[in-house]
């Protein structure tokens, strides 16, 4: 969990396409003076709506083994210690020379092979897995990760995006869908997680999975119901039953859907929503303050009326 005086809010959902990015961007535009981290590195979308000015792009790497063949005696220990089948040793025979094959796509960068090689024949080299983009728009800072096509491992790239986390500004993290490793990597540093869902059986099913993950991680959370009038009341009933705070409901509006399809935000077409997003933030600050003692409120609360 975040040890600093600023607040880190992550936005996750379980089910994809419920409105995580929409909420992240609109919340950022309503609050200003925030940092937005796009941790949906497989399919990053924040930049399409926030349209930040990109200042620099840095390559992101994973450490993978490289074998110095002249030092290697083909003992096979590296293969034995690799839990991911990412390294294979072909022992020399009377007819063939030995070889060591590295399958970099399977490597988790644990370092076991290089550390445990008796001949010290394995060094770790950088393999590019994606980029980390830095930029901003007025008082909003933006950092986003983008996984390279064909790369499997999102969590190490998410870690690199999270290294840029601000210690002073309110941080908004756009998490990937699902409830597994990538989602956990993205939300684990946050003080509060907003779960965005829609009132359908799919939305509810995946919301429950995400809720269970956050409870296990001991992260406070609340729910935002998007397109709140398209389905049934099962999500609301579930939240009441489970004593989960429903922070906001956003009814379906064709105007919002059409604007979204063009990359236009809610607060652009319906500026009155700014107050709603600010009060959403204030609710979160109050929940965190209640949990931590009241030190936070004065510093971070934004006035709904300004």
């Amino acid at each position, binding site marked *: 969990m975040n040890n600093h005086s600023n607040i880190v809010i992550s936005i996750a959902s*379980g*089910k*994809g*396409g*419920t409105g995580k*990015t929409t909420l992240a961007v609109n919340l950022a535009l309503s609050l200003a003076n925030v940092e937005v981290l796009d941790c949906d590195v*497989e*399919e990053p*979308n924040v930049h*399409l*709506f926030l349209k930040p000015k990109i200042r620099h792009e840095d390559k992101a790497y994973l450490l993978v083994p490289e074998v110095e063949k002249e030092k290697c005696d083909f003992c096979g220990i590296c293969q034995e*210690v690799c*839990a*991911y089948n990412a390294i294979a040793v072909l022992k020399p025979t009377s007819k063939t020379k030995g070889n060591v094959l590295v399958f970099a796509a399977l490597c*988790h*960068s*644990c*370092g*076991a092979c290089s*550390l*445990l090689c008796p001949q010290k024949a394995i060094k770790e080299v950088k393999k590019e897995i994606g980029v980390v983009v830095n930029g901003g728009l007025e008082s909003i800072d933006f950092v986003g990760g983008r*996984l390279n*096509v*064909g*790369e*499997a*491992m*999102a969590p190490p790239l998410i870690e690199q995006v999270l290294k840029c986390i601000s210690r002073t500004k309110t941080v908004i993290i756009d998490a*990937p*869908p*699902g*409830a*597994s*490793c*990538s*989602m*956990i990597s993205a939300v*684990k540093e946050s003080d509060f997680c907003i779960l965005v869902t829609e009132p*359908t*059986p*799919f939305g509810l*099913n*995946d919301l429950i*999975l995400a809720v*269970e*993950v956050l409870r*296990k*991680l001991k992260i406070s959370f609340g729910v935002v119901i998007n397109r709140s009038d*398209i*389905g*049934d009341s099962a999500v609301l009933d579930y939240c009441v039953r489970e004593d989960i705070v429903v922070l906001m409901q956003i009814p379906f509006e064709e105007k919002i*859907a*059409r604007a*979204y*399809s*063009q*990359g236009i935000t809610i607060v652009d077409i319906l500026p009155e929503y700014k107050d709603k997003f600010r009060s959403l933030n204030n609710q979160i600050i109050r929940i965190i303050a209640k949990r931590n003692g009241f030190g936070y409120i004065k510093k971070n609360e934004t006035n709904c009326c300004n």
Partner: protein
Amino acid sequence: MKQIVVISGKGGTGKTVFTASLAVLAESKVLADCDVDAADLHLILKPVIVQTDNFVGGKAFEINRDICIKCGKCIQFCRFKAISADFIIDPIFCEGCGLCKRICPVNAISESDRICGQSYISNSKYGPFAHAKLDIAEGNSGKLVSKVRQAAKKIALQKKLDYVIIDGTPGIGCALIASIAGVDLAVVVVEPTISGIHDMQRVLDVAAHFKVVSKVVINKFDINLENCAEIEEVCKIKGVEIIGRIPFSRQVSESIVKCIPMVEYVDMPIREKIIAIWEKIKIYTQM
């Protein structure tokens, strides 16, 4: 036997709803839900489970505190920051590499199989169904996706079924790669939004990277015709054919709320469009 996967890049574009329609239309098939992270297809198929298997995702490690001398070597070398200062391994962050066990000077760390979820074989109104559930806060979904696909393929071969129809995962990472590897056709469901287009391009590139043939279906095409034109342009450049356009309809949301396959619920004009897409898929997979 042919394997067809439904993917999208972006989540929530209609993968599962479309897959459920194929489940109705295809005659001889087994279904597989590979979105093991947040599986939803079972809500529509209402399966009856006939077989449950534990999914061993890797190894779990535990420090025996009676033996541990608190030297701190395991904490120092764990790349995943999974070991706390008081020598407890947090399973949420442990990636199961086992380096801690190997370097512990007093052999204080034991290992066991790590059960990360369950995989199921079920019967449904629409045919046999392979699916799975990851346990809470577990990882290694790519491996579980492969397990579900193997189970589905085995059923198809045993029962001599024509198709394995796979509900894929969003994104482009390990779970997506595991759900498309070696399939005969990937159907990419896209919606005409700028994020939908952006994400479609990336997933089409991943499919091409792994030499998988893709076809595109535009869902809710009439919410933004300009963006549809852009999808057409992108697909033309990439040499990918668009095999159908499904209009927006409130009936689709209703069918989801009622957990009925869309094709059984919507009015004839939309139903005909979905049937036409399935006919094209049949031609491409030459069954």
